[in-house]
């Protein structure tokens, strides 16, 4: 059974919930090595998505929801994470355009397109201590899970787990992109807020598909 428009709606709802729940944590992480607004930015953006979800037709596709979320994030979040997450979801939407049910390969395509969108805009590489450090292991884990014949839900769960590991792995790094790059060595020991929020958003995706608790 693939993931349909209802899943996408549930993902966005779960994302709004998980962001609201971890708002202060994300602010605190960002205060340590950035400017302390990451949780506020995402909370503003996902809160703006919520009311729009109620107005969706029953036959909405995942691509429709992803595009709606993308444009809403772009026009409400601001900062670095707004255009990055916005572009990610826009590219993801294009990658699964027209599909009503996403199978495991489609989920991998969605995640890959999202990650590539972030890299296109932000030009960060793995190891630069950004959200890319969560997205890239997530994409790799998702590919492996799909190749192993896992269900779309399990593919997302694998992605979420890998993202969490990727976020944790940002802690010892010096940052080369984003505000944390201004800190030099002083960024060492702190987790990147965007990598952390990425792992929450992927947890939300898996939970919306029935895997794991967001």
């Amino acid at each position: 059974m693939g993931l349909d428009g209802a899943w996408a709606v549930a993902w966005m709802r779960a994302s709004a919930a998980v962001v609201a729940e971890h708002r202060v944590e994300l602010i605190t992480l960002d205060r340590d090595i950035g400017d302390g607004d990451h949780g506020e930015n995402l909370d503003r953006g996902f809160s703006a998505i919520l009311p729009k979800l109620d107005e969706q037709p029953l036959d909405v596709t995942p691509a429709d929801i992803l595009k709606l979320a993308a444009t809403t994030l772009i026009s409400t979040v601001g900062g670095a994470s707004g255009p990055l997450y916005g572009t990610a979801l826009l590219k993801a939407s294009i990658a699964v355009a027209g599909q009503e049910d996403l199978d495991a390969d489609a989920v991998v395509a969605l995640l890959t397109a999202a990650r590539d969108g972030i890299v296109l805009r932000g030009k960060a590489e793995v190891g630069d201590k950004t959200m890319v450090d969560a997205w890239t292991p997530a994409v790799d884990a998702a590919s492996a899970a799909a190749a192993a014949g896992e269900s779309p839900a399990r593919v997302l769960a694998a992605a979420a787990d890998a993202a969490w590991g990727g976020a944790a792995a940002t802690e010892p790094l010096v940052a080369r992109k984003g505000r944390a790059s201004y800190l030099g060595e002083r960024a060492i020991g702190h987790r990147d807020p965007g990598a952390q929020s990425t792992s929450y958003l992927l947890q939300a995706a898996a939970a919306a598909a029935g895997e794991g608790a967001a």
Partner: protein
Amino acid sequence: MKKLINDPKDVVVEAVAGFGAAHPDLVTVSLDPVFIARADAPVAGKVGIVSGGGSGHEPLHGGFVGFGMLDAAVPGPVFTSPTPDPILAATKAVDGGAGVLHIVKNYTGDVLNFETAADLALAEGIEVRSVIVDDDVAVKDSLYTAGRRGVAGTVLVEKLAGARAEAGGGLDEVADLATKVNERTRTMGVALTPCVVPHAGEPSFTLADDEIEIGIGIHGEPGRERIPLEPADRIVDRLLAAILEDLPYAPGERTLVLVNGMGGTPQVELFIVFRRVAEALAERGIEVARSLVGNYTTSLEMQGVSITLLKLDDELIELWDAPVQTAALRWGR
């Protein structure tokens, strides 16, 4: 946290509304989307200049909207870049047919959001050029990093590009002038206290009673290093050394000095700092041809100061002296 605000979520909209009410002769404000434009915008045939970024740095940018400087300012939430929508709206509002220059401080968020707005403007047939300001020497620059931050030097870029546009310069000419100013501008700052973002309600960082943060940014982000408090003259010497190491001056060269308060610094301290800057530059044979001392690029109530040097030439001096009529900078009319 004690602030003279109502709902933290309304800070920017209410402040912009108040600014518009205080300066009806200079600006008109839009509250949805939020931007501030010259009262006489669009000026037909003139290159429009738009800048913006997170709020909390006032008078940057809204205080510099008016004759001879910016055509529009786009304030985002406090310390957070605006989204593309208001930037696009402001760009359209000030396009007088000669194209629009975006002056963007070098932060990933600002760059990305202005980039998207520029793409959208182009799609609507407006020619846009963008100049990225990155004057902060506190941050090590490299091809592989986000690069330097744009800080108080932005004011100088805005003033001089504004003068060039007011004098009839074309889009490329104005953009090239802005680039030239940025290339000749260096800034280094220090914080004595942190600031509190309204929606966060907590200080951006904490400093002990005898500590200062050298190389501070303008968003309450931590600086380059933390050292014990020193006499003002020694702090000034530190900041100047970093600037002059990055962009050396030969004796006899002329400079514009901007001593910029971070928001909560008493004015006496700014002039104590300026006094030492002038003295130290004189010792090196550098001529202070122009100067500006005050709160121009702030971080809310942060106490601290930044020093900016702009290497002048005759062209820049002439543009600096050209009339400007904005809420925060005004001379010649």
